[in-house]
């Protein structure tokens, strides 16, 4: 019997990777780190558009916070300069702190929202901040689903019925 709901570890063990979708960067606001909120067609049957967009928007918000130019970032910069940047030996930069928050958020999202749907988000930091990689898994025990990626069989989409 196939488990309908996947935990993160279960996902890696019992499901096979079908395909990956890559959400690209959105450069319309300059070189700041933002990702496109356009909903990838491959995820059409897997997750609600709204949930996905919310995830990406929250991530974009985090990155904007990390790269925010304002009083506190100037202070940090000037202080660092005054100490010839030795202060970074003992202090974490604001950016690094936000990246940690992002990492936690992504893990949280994976556990709560994406893993139950057979998906897995990869932290963009692991991909050089170029893309958000979303791995789409197929259940090994789901019948006859080929790894065509986009349309997963209804039986395979873990937690489909209940979650929505």
């Amino acid at each position, binding site marked *: 019997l196939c488990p309908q709901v996947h935990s993160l570890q279960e996902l890696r063990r019992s499901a096979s990777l079908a395909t990956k979708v890559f959400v690209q960067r959105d*450069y*319309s606001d*300059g*070189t700041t780190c933002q990702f496109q909120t356009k909903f990838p067609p491959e995820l059409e049957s897997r997750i609600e558009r709204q949930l996905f967009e919310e995830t990406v928007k929250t991530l974009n918000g985090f990155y904007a916070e990390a790269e925010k130019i304002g009083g506190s970032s100037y202070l940090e*910069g000037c202080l660092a300069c005054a100490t010839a940047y030795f202060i*970074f030996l003992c202090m974490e930069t604001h950016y690094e702190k936000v990246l940690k928050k992002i990492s936690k958020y992504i893990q949280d999202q994976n556990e709560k929202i994406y893993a139950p749907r057979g998906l897995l988000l*990869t*932290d963009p930091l*692991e991909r050089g901040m170029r893309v958000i*990689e979303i791995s789409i898994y197929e259940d090994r025990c789901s019948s006859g689903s080929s790894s065509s990626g986009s349309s997963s069989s209804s039986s395979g989409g873990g937690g489909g019925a209940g979650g929505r």
Partner: protein
Amino acid sequence: MSVMVARKKVVRKWEKLPGRNTFCCDGRIMMARQKGIFYLTLFLILGTCALFFAFECRYLAVQLSPAIPVFAAVLFLFAMATLLRTSFSDPGVIPRALPDEAAFIEMEIEATNGTVPQGQRPPPRIKNFQINNQIVKLKYCYTCKIFRPPRASHCSICDNCVERFDHHCPWVGNCVGKRNYRYFYLFILSLSLLTIYIFTFNIVYVALKSLKIGFLNTLKETPGTVLEVLICFFTLWSVVGLTGFHTFLVALNQTTNEDIKGSWTGKNRVQNPYSHGNIVKNCCEVLCGPLPPSVLDRRGILQQEESTAQEGSCLRGPGTQEPPATQGPGQAQEGGMKQQDGSIPLPSAVPAPSVADTEKPEEKQRTPGELPVPPPDAGRAEH
């Protein structure tokens, strides 16, 4: 838990990173491959300052003020600190695309352009974006298999795409990019001040001493003075000029690369969309803005597929480590689209001597980088 089999020595990710970089201190330090001129820089700075402290400072501290060597020491230490920081840090290298990602992008490109028959040169891969009402083109990098972010450029000397690429500096032995531009600027600034300082006080020293024992005798007593003055004189012209140039760039939020290519000037009259229009704001952003950490996880441990019993030692999600996809030489020439654009790396800072060895441990690294093996490719800075 499974049994841990005796493993070979731990392999860190920096050992498998593509690109032509040298790594030291087990991945903490990252430089370009050719370091000869960097050693020259160090030698000149250390040498001249050593002479200055040994000879002139002793006399001037007594005759004029002890603050003179103190201030020189502060300047010298700051210049060395910023030099080492510039040379040893990751300039903002963009890791190469993993095979999955590269394939995905290729599919997208083919969908837009359609497939090209064998043997024909594919059209240049460019995406258009609009930033602040200007159209900016993103170019596709054949070596790294990514669409380069705006202002990024591929350095052919280091064979990496670097964010906000300024230029490759042989004097510093590294690329100058987003993450180390401020250190570079502070280095040439402090070096200029140091050079002017040493030059001035050498003149003062010679003047003072000549009053007592005559000009020729002064030179005979401290022949190093002549050497220092010569070095400082030539350094002044280059470094101070360079500092002025970069101050201009910082005020306008431009990079050397963009300036050389005339991206924002010239007939098109396309304005720089990254400038805030305000000199102070531009300076603040470039020099004091938030510093993104390196995305190359140099010190991360490479997962050994062969060693058994690696249960749970997954660093992160799936597909993190993949065996390098060997690319043959000339990969960058695929389709004949070499990104060589004739942009010449501007040789920057000329050394002025200083002393001291401040070790600059890099800031904490994290996250995996990419692993494909790149083809070496001699050339100049590309765009």
